């Protein structure tokens, strides 16, 4: 028995040794590198999902007139990677899914100051305090509800109300989701730690925990829960995919500056040491341009933040009409305390 199976496995191993050689022939060896080759190619570390932003980054390549290499990953992990790379980073531009990761690089002094013209494209609330990153698109927290389970008029106006006894077992949320955590951080900034902790305890007692926004939205649609705390664009994406008549959930945008209506942003910053500042700046200009902003509005269903572009997604309330809380996004960096609180309450 020993012989044939030994030979078979040895053959597999030998084939294994050959494969990488073949694979490297096929996979285009020119990729990577060239970070120090002056200002020619641009390397973008993108914490935003490839599915969402690849089309616009393809167009960006033409707009900046240079080769663009995109490294997709998780925003937080890419930020940690850039910090570990230090002044030898290969990244010219960091495209982050949230303000927090940009704030972390800014704090370590790794981002270059942006020209005032770029900064002025975007409302002061949605750019870095040190002027070294700028928001591109915004997403707003909303309450999704199932009209079969709860009448529109009965949906809470304040996120604080979901802890009321009448919603016991009827609220879905995703405590591990970064947007949820940013919103809780916002609540801490706005209403203080004690009030937030109390609210979280109430939410834990009332709520059902889901993996992410999508799973929460699914649960609302299926009627497993009546309410769900989610980001707005998931609903619009689903409507685009299935058609509105097939989506069983509705959205409520909270009024009156409620913490439950927090707006968070995705944005970009230029790496000081990436050696690609020229092309990176062209890329920032392009991402703030009308074409790119329209893309974010139409395709990812987010709120465009610059170039005077307004979203014309059907049913989406105008950006100006949102009564989001007045909060400095830079203050959302105290995420660690939020996590400690979530852990303390037993939600993550």
């Amino acid at each position, binding site marked *: 028995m020993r012989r044939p199976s030994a030979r078979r496995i040895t053959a597999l191993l030998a084939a294994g040794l050959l494969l990488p050689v073949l694979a490297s022939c096929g996979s285009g060896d020119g990729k*990577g590198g060239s970070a120090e080759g002056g200002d020619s190619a641009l390397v973008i570390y993108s914490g935003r999902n490839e599915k969402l932003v690849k089309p616009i980054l393809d167009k960006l390549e033409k707009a900046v007139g240079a080769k663009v290499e995109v490294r997709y990953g998780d925003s937080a992990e890419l930020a940690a990677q850039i910090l570990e790379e230090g002044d030898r980073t290969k990244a010219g531009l960091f495209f982050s899914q949230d303000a927090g990761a940009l704030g972390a690089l800014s704090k370590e002094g790794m981002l270059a100051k942006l020209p005032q013209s770029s900064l002025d494209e975007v409302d002061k609330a949605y750019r870095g305090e040190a002027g070294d990153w700028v928001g591109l698109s915004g997403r707003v927290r909303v309450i999704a509800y199932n009209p079969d389970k709860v009448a529109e008029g009965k949906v809470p106006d304040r996120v604080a109300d979901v802890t009321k006894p009448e919603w016991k077992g009827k609220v879905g949320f995703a405590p591990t989701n970064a947007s949820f955590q940013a919103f809780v951080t916002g609540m801490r900034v706005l209403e203080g730690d004690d009030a937030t902790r109390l609210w979280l305890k109430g939410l834990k007692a009332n709520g059902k925990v889901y993996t992410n926004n999508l799973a929460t939205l699914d649960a609302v649609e299926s009627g497993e829960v009546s309410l769900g705390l989610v980001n707005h664009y998931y609903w619009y994406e689903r409507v685009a995919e299935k058609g509105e008549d097939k989506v069983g959930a509705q959205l409520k945008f909270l009024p009156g500056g409620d913490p439950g209506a927090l707006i968070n942003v995705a944005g970009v910053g230029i790496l000081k040491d990436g050696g690609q500042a020229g092309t990176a700046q062209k890329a920032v200009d392009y991402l703030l341009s009308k074409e790119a902003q329209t893309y974010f509005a139409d395709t990812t269903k987010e709120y465009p933040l610059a170039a005077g572009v307004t979203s014309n997604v059907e049913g989406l309330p105008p950006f100006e009409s949102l009564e989001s809380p007045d909060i400095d996004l830079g203050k959302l960096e105290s995420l660690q305390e939020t996590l400690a609180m979530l*852990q303390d309450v037993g939600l993550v």
Partner: protein
Amino acid sequence: MTTSASGGRPAGAPAPAGRRPVRTTDGAPAGRRPPWVLLVPACVAALFALLPLGYLAVRAFERGPRYAWDVVGDERTLQLLARSLSLTAAVVAACLVLGVSLAWLTVRTALPGARAWSVLVTLPLAVPSYVAAFAWLASAPRTAGFGGAALALTLVSFPYVHLPVAAALRGIDPAQEEAARSLGHGPVRTFLRVTLPQLRPAAAGGALLVALYVLSDFGAVSLMRYDTFTRAIHTSYRASFDRTPAAALSVVLVVMTVALVAAETRTRGRAGHARTGAGTARPAVPVPLGRWRIPALAWCTTLVAAAVAFPLGTLGYWLAVGNSATWDVGALGEAAWTTLGVAAAGAALTTLLALPVGVIAARHRGGGARLLEQAAYAGHALPGITVALSLVFFAVRYAYPLYQQLPLLIGAYAVLFLPVAVAATRAAVLQAPPVLEDVARSLGRSPLRVLREVTVPLAAPGVAAGAALTFVVCMKELPATLLLRPTGVDTLATRLWTETGSGSFAAAAPYAAALILLAAVPSYLLGRHRT
């Protein structure tokens, strides 16, 4: 023989009648210092495996020992420790029950279709933990938490126990069992009293791999929302971008690893026997199952259904529903090709590095040999992101041209999975009779020639099986691949991650299915592989 720690008799047990006394590793060349030809490459491998530790030391004490101690000494750390250990204990216990029972059923009983079953129960290896967790979560959201995490991890890792135990069962001399049966013991009693104790080293080796796998897993625990050390380390990177607390917590994981490896070494004891003369053991007479045949078949069916058919079925469902299902055949093919390439290279490098360490661990005793083996295990329980960041750190400083190139990614696989290959090599070498090496040496062969002409050929099937296993785990790896792959290069795992990240599970399904099907090939060979 697969990843077995040899199916020898417990130390001190009398040799079976009618057979010459068997030479054990204790007997022969044990105390001798390993030859340079082994020692030097083994030290290189160990240093390689210790890279993450160097990084952790730099990062953890960056802000002084006091800060690191504050992180580690926090009440929360103790809680995480308890959570990690209880999950590990539960999964290891479940894997032992599943793995040993399946090994016995497929190797020693008249189970209908035993050979097919022995292949089928190896296939769960091909399922990534995050895919298993996702399948369960999507169908039964209530499984979230400890139970769900334990379920998903058990179902993907019981072959780590099944494979070495099945191999050991094939190698055990049936004489003692027959004696027990002739004395009137039933099959169950014989199994518990006679067979099981002999399986201890093999089971312990498998259990160690399972334990280290559970400690380092991020995918399943994260989806199941069960907070363990690894998940806390991820959260720490994510929340603060501060690498110090994450590094301090990682150090605790390293300490746990060393404790586990030491515990396994004690359990393993001095077992490790090789046979000479009569060659391999006679095949045992299969135990008739009688009316237990149906429950036995039901047991196998349930496990294969839950571990393999269920996740595949879920993927099929995703493919069938939702119009985000797009078969990008080009991207799928390219990712599959890359995956095969990097995983094969990773397995080859890992096996090469593991060879000297495994031979020393099998053939030499003493503090130095033990230290080498433990060093090889050091990085195994660490989360992939920690290992990846440590390689970013070293490569950026000392090997910049390699940074974000394939060789670095392949190196990361070697650091992450060295123990899998070391365990297999060690077990394979233990099964090769040391007396043959002695003879070769007495004939004036140099240590290198002994290694090349005697040890390696004898151990080759087991080493190759270890390589196949490493190949499978490399294919499934995600966090290190995300950080270290060349820009623009994708594996099936990273594509899967991309697709699920944008919420299109239907588009993710082809990548998950391709990953499982490709990883099933070496798993299948492992299941077929017998000594």
